[in-house]
């Protein structure tokens, strides 16, 4: 009896879209409640799946170890001499994707909560939001490369509109930049997908397939094909497999984002409306990290090992560069955007270390950064909603005016900079420990990378505390003077209701990280073993 | 006997004159005259060639036909010109240009 929970989770928002589309525009409120209700359902579903998820489900390369699997043959087209086109609807979760599904449903729910006051074209807005919801869920669950690509591209479209229509002053520029930049990466990914398709055969049917799990098994490659490990073709002077890895890596690295491919992020985050920033920072960046783990590392583990040093270097550069640039910002939202770049650098460093601690730390950091950055952007949004100004130098001494808000901000800032007791600490500590360990375990990353990475901890303390001191403490002095004082009401019940679970979750995971680690351990071990054996 | 060629040349001359008259005269009646001349040139040709048909005198019979037809054509043409003159107030074919593009 297969309750098809995963399919239900993915396509529930689609039902919501249909519902919203058919309700006349007069009843604006209905859209919000439908979205909210969908969000709740998804949360319950994914929470239930998380709870039911068996910790031994390592997955990664073995189809039998994936859970909640739905494998339905979708397109079987006989193309004559080109063979049989085989695209399946193949979804499943393992330890890597399960936490992200839960994170997605949580962040989406929070985004709906943050969208409560959208006035312009609410119907279109919520339809696009639900499509995005579906696409992101699909990305994390898809195990067929073509299906993955469909969902991946499907993510971009609603975001373009959501940023471009409901965004800030330079929204068209930001939306265009984001869309084209990400598309640039994924277009080349399509080439590699096709290349892989022609290189891999399904052991059961003998036809070429897009099934990712088959691509992970070197035995499935037809000898002499482009990406076969044995043949070791060369394209443009470098090994074909390495080229494939690099192209795929670039596509996901744009999403992570790494320095120097990060410049879309500040513009997109700043110009997007608050709920979209929450989704961007909370989930979309994780798609990049997840893609690297699931696709680049699992399909091209040999190339991954070759490039580990460079990956580590990129990670360290991202950490330090992102933190330094964040220090120099004058716009609060931009500062938080750059802090996201810095924190995702930790993820890359952890992944590059190829140790269990590092990889597990990286996944944990992704999860923790998900709701912490959502919390951060939500707080910025709260301030912006009131006075429509985010400039750090325009505010002083907010603690006396908005005490509860200050408490939230202080807790979130300290949680983000890695104070123990919160989840970010665990993630960052284990990334650094893993990176350190890398030299003794597999000799991949030199120790100085880990030390440079730990500089990031210092710098994040610097810019967060500076902002905290600058904006919240001291005597109150606002650019807008009296007018602003009146507009700056403290946190409303809705906002408190949204902030408390996020911070509570950060605290819970910080105190009891086993909640997450138990689920991801088996997969991380399997992944590390897969890469280590090459 | 007069060689055939002479008749033919005369016929050609007549035809040419008739052609010229049709093409270059500014009076419709004169255009008719030209047409008549061309027809008569053809009739002359016919008669010239009838010398070789002593049994049926086909050429001469055909010539008689042609004369009648010419007369009929002239009658009709004159009627048209008269009507056209009533409408356009001019017999100059240059003035009738309504079918110009």
């Amino acid at each position, binding site marked *: 009896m297969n309750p098809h929970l995963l399919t239900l989770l993915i396509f529930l928002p689609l039902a919501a879209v249909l519902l919203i589309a058919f309700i006349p525009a007069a009843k604006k409120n209905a859209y919000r409640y439908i979205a909210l209700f969908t969000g709740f359902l998804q949360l319950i579903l994914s929470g239930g799946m998380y709870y039911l998820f068996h910790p031994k489900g390592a997955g990664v390369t073995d189809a039998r170890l994936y859970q909640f699997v739905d494998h339905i043959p979708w397109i079987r087209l006989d193309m004559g001499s080109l063979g049989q086109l085989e695209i399946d609807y193949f979804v499943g979760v393992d330890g890597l994707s399960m936490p992200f599904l839960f994170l997605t449903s949580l962040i989406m729910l929070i985004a709906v909560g943050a969208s409560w006051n959208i006035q312009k074209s609410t119907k279109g807005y919520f339809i696009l939001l639900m499509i995005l919801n579906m696409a992101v869920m699909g990305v994390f669950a898809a195990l067929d490369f073509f299906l993955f690509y469909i969902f991946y591209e499907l993510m971009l479209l609603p975001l373009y509109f959501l940023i471009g229509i409901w965004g800030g002053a330079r929204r068209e520029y930001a939306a265009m*930049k984001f869309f*084209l930049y990400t598309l640039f990466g994924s277009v080349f990914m399509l080439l590699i997908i096709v290349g892989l398709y022609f290189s891999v055969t399904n052991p059961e049917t003998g036809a070429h397939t897009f099934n990712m799990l088959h691509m992970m098994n070197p035995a499935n490659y037809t000898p002499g094909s482009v990406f076969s490990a044995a043949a070791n073709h060369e394209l443009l002077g470098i090994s074909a497999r390495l080229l494939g890895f690099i192209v795929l890596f670039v596509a996901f690295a744009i999403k992570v984002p790494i320095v*120097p491919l*990060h*410049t*879309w992020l500040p513009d997109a985050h700043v110009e997007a409306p608050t709920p979209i920033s929450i989704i961007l920072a909370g989930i979309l960046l994780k798609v990049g990290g997840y893609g690297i783990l699931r696709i680049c590392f699992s399909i091209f583990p040999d190339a991954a090992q070759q490039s580990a040093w460079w990956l580590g270097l990129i990670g360290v550069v991202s950490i330090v*560069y992102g933190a*330094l640039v*964040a*220090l*120099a910002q004058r716009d609060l939202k931009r500062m938080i955007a750059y802090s996201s770049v810095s924190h995702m650098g930790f993820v890359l460093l952890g992944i590059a270390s190829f140790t*269990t*601690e590092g990889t*597990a730390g990286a996944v944990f950091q992704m999860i923790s950064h998900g709701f912490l950055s959502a919390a951060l952007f939500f707080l910025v949004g709260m301030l912006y909603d009131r006075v429509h100004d985010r400039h750090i130098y325009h505010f002083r*001494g907010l*603690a006396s005016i908005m005490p509860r808000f200050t408490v939230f901000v202080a807790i979130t800032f*300290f949680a983000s900079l890695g*104070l*123990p007791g919160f989840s970010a*600490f665990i993630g960052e*500590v284990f990334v*650094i*420990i893993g*990176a*350190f*360990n890398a030299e*003794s*375990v597999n000799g991949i990353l030199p120790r100085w990378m*880990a*030390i440079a990475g*730990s*500089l990031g*901890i*210092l710098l994040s*303390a*610097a810019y967060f*505390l500076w902002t*905290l*001191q600058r904006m*919240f*403490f*001291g*005597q109150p002095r606002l650019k807008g003077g009296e007018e602003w004082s009146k507009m700056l009401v403290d946190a409303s019940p809705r906002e408190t209701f949204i902030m408390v679970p996020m911070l509570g979750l950060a605290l819970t995971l910080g105190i*009891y*990280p*086993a909640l997450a*680690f138990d689920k991801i*351990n088996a997969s*991380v*071990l399997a992944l590390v073993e897969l890469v280590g054996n090459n | 006997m007069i060689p055939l060629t002479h008749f033919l040349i005369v016929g050609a001359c007549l035809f040419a004159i008739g052609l010229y008259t*049709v*093409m*270059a*005269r500014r009076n419709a009646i004169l255009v008719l005259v030209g047409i008549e001349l061309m027809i008569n040139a053809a009739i002359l040709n016919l008669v010239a060639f009838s010398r070789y048909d002593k049994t049926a005198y086909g050429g001469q019979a055909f010539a008689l036909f042609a004369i009648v037809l010419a007369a009929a054509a002239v009658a009709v043409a004159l009627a048209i010109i008269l009507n056209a003159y009533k409408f356009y107030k001019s017999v100059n*074919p*240059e003035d*009738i*240009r309504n079918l*110009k*593009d």
Partner: protein
Amino acid sequence: MLLPFAGFLLSAALGKRAGNGAVATSAILLSLLAACYAFAQIWNQPPIHIQWHWFTIGEQAFHVGVLLDNMAVMMLVLVSLIALPVHIYSAAYMKGDPGIHRYWTYLSLFCFAMLGLVVADNLLLMYICWELVGFASYLLIGFWFTKDAAVQANKKAFIVNRIGDIGFLIGMALTYSHLGTLDTKALIEAPETLPAPWLTVAGLAFFLGAMAKSAQFPLHVWLPDAMEGPTSVSSLIHAATMVAAGVFLLARIFPVFDATVLLVIATIGTVTAFAAAYFALTQYDIKNILAFSTISQLGFMMVGIGIGMYPVALFHLATHAFFKCLLFLCAGAIIHEMQHAKETYGLDMDPQDIRNMGGLRKHMPLTFTAMLIASLALAGFPFTGGYLSKDALIVHTFEWAALQSGAAKLIPYVLVAVSMLTSFYILRLLAKVFFGSLSIRSVKKDIRIHEAPMRMLGPMLFLAGCSLFPLFSVNPLNDSYVWLMQGLTSPVSTLPPLRLLHLAIPVLTTGVTCIVAGVAWQWYVNGKYPLKGGGKFYRLSEHQGYLDALYDAAVVRPVVRLSQLLLWVDHYIIDGMVNGLSALGRSFAAVAAWVDQRLVDGIVRLIGKIAWGLGNVFRRLQNGRLQHYFATLFFIILVILLYHIVVLL
């Protein structure tokens, strides 16, 4: 340990209603009782080690555990014992402050973290408590958050502490990668598993952590600024406990340090002790003097560890905790009264400036007594606990130096000099504050200063009693009987004793103290100050070695400028590349558009034009002219005939 945490949670939950601090105080009282009980059970007994599984990464399990051995229970009792009087004192000191409920919350959080630190059995847990202690310190230093100076101070404190945290983290990572575990016990028992260069690095890394937390030179700059917090906070955190955390860490993982690292520790400790004492000589703010005194004494403790005698260091830590806490509490009482006077009489003065005080002995006799005892303990006068620990330290240093070579031999002499400086500055403090006449009287004639309230005095007197010798040893003059040290001594740390020194040093220091007392009396009480006020050395001391300015110029400004530079790079170069690419794309698009419009479309249009042109030409045929039609007709027939004739021929 969990009780203060419960206290913290309860205070946070109760919010404003926890104003009287009963929750926090009762929590700490219960903790103290529990600590004493544990002490009684564990002291000189085999240690207890309990672990609970916390989480697993991959296949490595991490635990939360409690390790109770002599060191741990001693610290437990010490921390709770100091915290309890401070709690009681705070109730009076902070009375009327609008944010007092926050104060109790933060104080309980701090106690929780500190107690957790001392009983933690693995490095990860220790690090967590270490950072939480720093966080609580941040909250408490910036307690009066509307004061700019306070806010700058707590930011500075946290960031400098973070530098140390990086060190701790690196040490931790090194340990993990070589030992595979973070248990301190495992680390103590088998430090040799770390290969040689990494062992030194790890030792230095851990020391870096301790340097920041225990305010060693040059990472001490946060401590004087931390005096912006309430005085009771300064007494608990920045005198007795948090700053001791660094020393505790080093003592706990002592077997990790090899000879190089130990030498480094001793050297830096000495430098710290000297520099801080030097700076303390000319400070005017009463709390600053005490802050530098703390730094200096911490330097002493570090030297104690550096020479290998960590039990002595811990012993000094214990005695220092008592008298320094007392010093701060007295200072707090004085400041409280001066503040009161300021408000009552409308004066414009800094209540912490000792130049405004004087002759307080007559007005606050009990405070004076307590402070006198504490000062004597600090200076190392006989019959106090401080005497025992400090002189033990100096003696052992001489013993150690005898085995060393080179510059290391200087260390004990420097320490002796420092203790002379110590006597000087503390007696200067006493003289200026308690003797002579009240300088603010010169402004207004009828100022009356009151004695401190009982709630403040009680704890102060209690601590004064603890500073005296009976707590530590039966024999006031000889350190071999100190039962605390006997409990802590480990086989690692023994040095061949030099009998003579055990007598010579105490005599020397005591003698110097008396001389200094006389000098101080002469200079400060009688006003005969021989040295010029603005001399170079004086100014160097007063401005704390210009270290803050140095840091600002050498570290802070460059970092800020670097970040702005990178921002520029990011905006113009990297983003410029992206925008440049888009501009390139757009220019390509413009070229393509031009090509499309002119060339491609041009061809299409050309075809159209040709068609039109041809049509135009043929249109001429339709001119409505009859004769023209006729001519054309004839012409074409002629052409056809000719064609036929020509072809058929």
